[in-house]
């Protein structure tokens, strides 16, 4: 039973520089999301819910939190005697050590890991998207098409298409061309960064790619185009559920808001597709008599004396008396002290918004207001107003109201 039909390789090495202050000491897949999750929880839960119990997680950037978060995978039922989750950081061989040069190179360097399971199929995933997807159905589609590779695709607004890998398919969903981030996208079928490969085919192309000094060793830029040119049977698997790339601060905030009513674009309460995560041990949250909480997600360990609307509160958040929080994401242990006002903001882990601060704009309509972000561990001094991105050692775009 050492053989596994399909195993997943989850790319989790990126820094996610566009998440700015949130990923300075944290790999992007470890960024907190949705009140108690980290971004990688969604992909890991997808694997388990799809019946895939062997997952290699390729790490490189600041992996300490990610490694200790994943452990041996208990929370996701991936602490298996055979298979399970395995963290795969870069390493040194007899002939020296190499960092992962690109997504394809990361998988290439771990062919030895794949080899131990002799899989028929390899599922390549990114650790930085929020979605629920049954990879089992995609595998079924892949097999039925007798494909060498299958790429999951989603329709995106045509004006955003140039940010993605864009495909053209024939009526059977066979891919006829693929362009990575085209300037003039021919349509709006975007790659979700979810690939299934026949293992033997993947191995061949990875080895060729490794010997090509001109390659940037990337799936989207090199492997996929090369396979298409070589005439491999490649198919696009259409997905039409919720899918969000949370690679920017704005999209991270939006995705959090999508968890709330009345839209409820993403349902965390679906018992048939549970999202697993490490569960912190915190006491129940307390809502005081002076408080008001509406249309929000609240976690254990929170103490709420103030008011909270359309917001996502991580464990251990404090909202003082008279404080008002609107449309905000307040991360682990952050404190909004008495009388502070927060609107359309992300408040980082353990940050403190002191008494009577004003975070974001007070009296402007939501749609028109840009996002305000306060970084991890920041302390915003009493009475200060912050608008934009706030980082230690300097304020960017800070407008004082008073």
């Amino acid at each position, binding site marked *: 039973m050492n053989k596994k039909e399909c195993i997943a390789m989850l790319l989790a090495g990126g820094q996610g520089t566009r998440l700015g202050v949130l990923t300075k000491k944290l790999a992007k897949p470890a960024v907190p999301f949705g009140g108690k999750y980290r971004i990688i929880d969604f992909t890991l839960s997808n694997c388990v819910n799809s019946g895939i119990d062997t997952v290699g997680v390729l790490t490189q950037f600041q992996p300490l939190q990610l490694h200790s978060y994943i452990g041996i995978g208990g929370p996701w039922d991936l602490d298996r005697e055979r298979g399970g989750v395995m963290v795969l950081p870069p390493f040194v061989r007899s002939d020296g050590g190499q960092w992962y040069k690109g997504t394809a190179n990361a998988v290439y360097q771990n062919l030895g890991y794949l080899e131990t399971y002799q899989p028929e199929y390899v599922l390549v995933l990114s650790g930085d998207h929020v979605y629920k997807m049954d990879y089992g159905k995609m595998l079924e589609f892949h097999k039925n098409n007798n494909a060498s590779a299958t790429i999951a695709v989603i329709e995106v607004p045509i004006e955003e298409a140039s940010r993605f890998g864009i495909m053209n398919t024939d009526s059977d969903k066979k891919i006829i061309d693929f362009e990575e981030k085209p300037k003039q996208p021919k349509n709006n079928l975007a790659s979700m960064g979810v690939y299934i490969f026949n293992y033997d085919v993947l191995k061949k192309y990875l080895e060729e790619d490794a010997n090509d000094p001109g390659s940037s060793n990337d799936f989207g830029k090199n492997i996929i185009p090369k396979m298409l040119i070589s005439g491999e049977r490649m198919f696009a698997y259409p997905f039409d559920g919720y899918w969000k790339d949370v690679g920017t601060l704005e999209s991270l905030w939006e995705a959090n808001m999508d968890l709330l009513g009345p839209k409820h674009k993403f349902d*965390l*309460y679906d018992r048939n597709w549970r999202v697993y995560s490490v569960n912190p041990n915190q*006491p*129940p949250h307390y*809502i*005081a008599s002076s408080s008001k909480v509406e249309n929000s997600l609240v976690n254990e360990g929170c103490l709420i004396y103030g008011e909270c609307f359309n917001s996502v509160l991580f464990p251990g958040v404090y909202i003082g008396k008279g404080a008002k929080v609107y449309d905000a994401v307040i991360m682990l242990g952050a404190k909004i002290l008495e009388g502070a006002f927060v609107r359309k903001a992300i408040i980082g882990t353990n940050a403190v918004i002191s008494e009577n601060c004003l975070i974001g704009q007070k009296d402007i309509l939501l749609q028109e207001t840009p996002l305000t972000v306060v970084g991890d561990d920041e302390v915003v001094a009493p009475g200060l107003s912050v608008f934009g991105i706030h980082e230690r050692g300097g304020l960017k775009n800070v407008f004082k109201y008073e």
Partner: protein
Amino acid sequence: MSLNMNNVMGVIILTERKDKLKELTLNRALAAVPFGARYRIIDFALSNLVNAGVRNVGVFVQEKYRSLMDHLGIGKEWDLNRQRDGLFILPPEKYADGSTSWLLNGDILLLRRHLDYLLRSKQEYVILMTNPIIWNVNFTTVLKDHLDKQADITIVYHLTDHQNCLGTFTEINTDRQEKITAVKVNPLINQSSKLSLDTFIIGRKKLMEIMDSSISTGGSDFVRDIIIPNLDKLLIYGYQFEGYARKINSLECYYKTSMELLNPKISKELFYANGPIYTKVKNEPPAIYTKTAEVKNSLIANGCIIKGRIENSILFRGVKVGQNAVVKNSIVMQKTELDYGVSLENVIIDKDCFISAEKKLMGAASYPLVISKKTQL
């Protein structure tokens, strides 16, 4: 002897045979009764031990211990899943002495059934608890006091005005040096405001020795047959615990103590003072408050979906409160669902119940109404 908590083991004896908390203890031991929105009563005793560095804990159980075993599992959440030492759940072995009835009257009789556990443990001291108290105590301080006084036995007690739910209790008197001068079990006339917290420190070998000599002369109860007859022979001291502590031994007391948690000062002390209280973790999403939610002065666990009004209440994990429902001064346990327009006041609802739309339930503040597990109304 240095203050090394690796040198201390914990022993929790759960002797109670009566259904002290009525419907709540019909099918579970008192120690396994849910408490405080996400805990069970035993979590406090266990967490206090673990937070002080104790790595070897034996829980002696008598019957109805299935839900307790489910809860404790291999002790992972208390960091007691260990190859050496760790958590031991010790039920009486039937047939062990050929008898057919294996219910024993007396804590030390239960303890003696697994004497080999005490024998093969390597720690020098035992923290012995004959009742799981609700508190957050620093046992390192208690041990230090025990060692400083070179006591044979230390009894932890607290001052109380006798107004709190009493049930069975043990009253003690001490002299100025905290040496214990008298101990009375359930006296009719109260003479001291010092009540035992049923928590003792004693040397492991000393415990085995005096237990053996007591049982062999007919003894069965730690306080009555070991403490009281030895007040003159052994150095028995009191240690006054000054924090919040409650012994749960009636339904009224359970309800009252639960409601006290709504005082943030008390819950802060209980949940954080000397380390966190550990419990079995469950994978639950955050609690969701809809636009119609209205919550005041309440403790709420993860996984709840709240559309109605909650006041002065405690909601365990995964409780659903429908629109227009009103919950006042009540305790609602795991996964119970309150449909549209349900109204509760002074009610305790056990796990997995379903209360259908518009039903009204009301108990008295001093006599809460209890709805049994899995009831459909």
